[in-house]
């Protein structure tokens, strides 16, 4: 059946509210492993030794198995303890609505984020940074600059500032937000020092 529109975040929330109740243990220890194994068998998936697949049938079977996993299993909300069901049409509608070309950053520091299509001769975007690893407050700018100044780096991903003015940046405390804002300022300072003020973060 045709969809009314791509799902919104509120549609997803409503879908969870209307979903079946289930304990998180049932989801983790029963539903996920059982369904994944069933689909591995159904689609006869065996990757063998190749780290990167060379045959189209493995790629297509894995895609079909993953799509069926999402549609037949649904998605679990760990706060509501409920399972959202999604149709295959909704999945394709979501794929269709997603922009396929994005510009990250601005001006001379921008990176074009376009589909590559297999092992295209075009290199992927290099997003340099500690990827969430903890970084001391006193060297935060320097650590981030060490990435921003690399010519092969196109965009920046930040590390986590371990403290803010000496206080641990503990989750769900004002220090967490203060550290986050300091991180953003620190990354900006690092990109300016590297001569790339408009690079995406």
């Amino acid at each position, binding site marked *: 059946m045709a969809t009314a529109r791509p799902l919104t975040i509120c549609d997803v929330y409503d879908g969870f509210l209307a979903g079946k109740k289930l304990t998180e243990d049932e989801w983790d220890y029963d539903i996920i492993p059982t369904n994944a194994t069933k689909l591995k068998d159904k689609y006869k998936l065996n990757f063998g030794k190749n780290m990167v697949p060379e045959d189209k049938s493995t790629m297509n079977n894995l895609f079909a198995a993953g799509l069926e996993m999402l549609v037949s299993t649904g998605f679990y909300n760990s706060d509501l303890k409920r399972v959202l069901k999604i149709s295959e049409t909704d999945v394709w509608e979501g794929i269709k609505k997603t922009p396929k070309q994005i510009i990250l950053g601005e001006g001379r520091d921008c990176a074009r984020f376009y589909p590559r*299509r297999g092992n295209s*001769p075009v290199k*992927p975007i290099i997003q340099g940074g500690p990827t969430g*690893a903890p970084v001391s407050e006193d060297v935060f700018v320097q650590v981030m600059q*060490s990435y921003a100044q690399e010519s092969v780096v196109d965009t920046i991903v930040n590390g986590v500032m371990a403290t803010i003015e000496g206080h641990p940046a503990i989750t769900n405390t004002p220090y967490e937000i203060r550290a986050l804002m300091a991180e953003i300022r620190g990354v900006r300072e690092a990109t300016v020092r590297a001569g790339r003020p408009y690079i995406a973060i």
Partner: protein
Amino acid sequence: MRPCDSHECSQLNELKVDMAALNMLSGWVENGNTIMIEQMPIFGGYCGMVEETAICDVASTLASFALFHGNYHLDGPIHIRWGITTSRETIQIAAHVAAAIDANTDLLLANQYYPIAGPCTEMCLLETAAQAIADTASGRELLSGSAAAKGVAQDKTTGMEARIMGEAAKATAGMKIADVNKILEKLVSSYEKNYAKAPAGKDFRQCYDVLTVKPTAEYLKVYEGAVKALAGFGLEIKN
């Protein structure tokens, strides 16, 4: 934050989300922010082994776009025993998932890096290069990293690891997949026996001059050693 910067939101393992994520996403969508949805499926965890983890990974990736308004998906299959993305199994999962989605959609796919060895070690650079080779060859559009020393040790990450990630990707782009697999087999075999005694590496302050933010001569030498080793495995990185 500008519309051309990215906001990151994480799913939970496996095929789960919480209300904090939905609430953040609701605001970001209305603001027109660029959204990166992250999920690191656990190899050997709830999903099971390689193929089952890959199935869950494809499902999680599709959910990022269909349910959560992601503009791009940041993957990162992680090994339950070692806590890394650079193992043979997790590289194989990520590469198969990317190739599968790339062959069937034009979605934008990213992957993140958690090697076991720390900075200023050849092992760290070789692990990072291995994943970059596989990610590039399997069609990913963005490589994000690298969180050396498993991303848990403070100040154990530097720009030099991103350099090898980018240079290995550049050298791989356009290669035949059969050739890539031969390189990967030799490369991963060279370090995978050393996880239990992986070198911890050095602190940022020992890898760089903190005042000038220049890498030390020692780290540049280690980098050159890694480039030489990669050439021996069949990947030529040009200076």
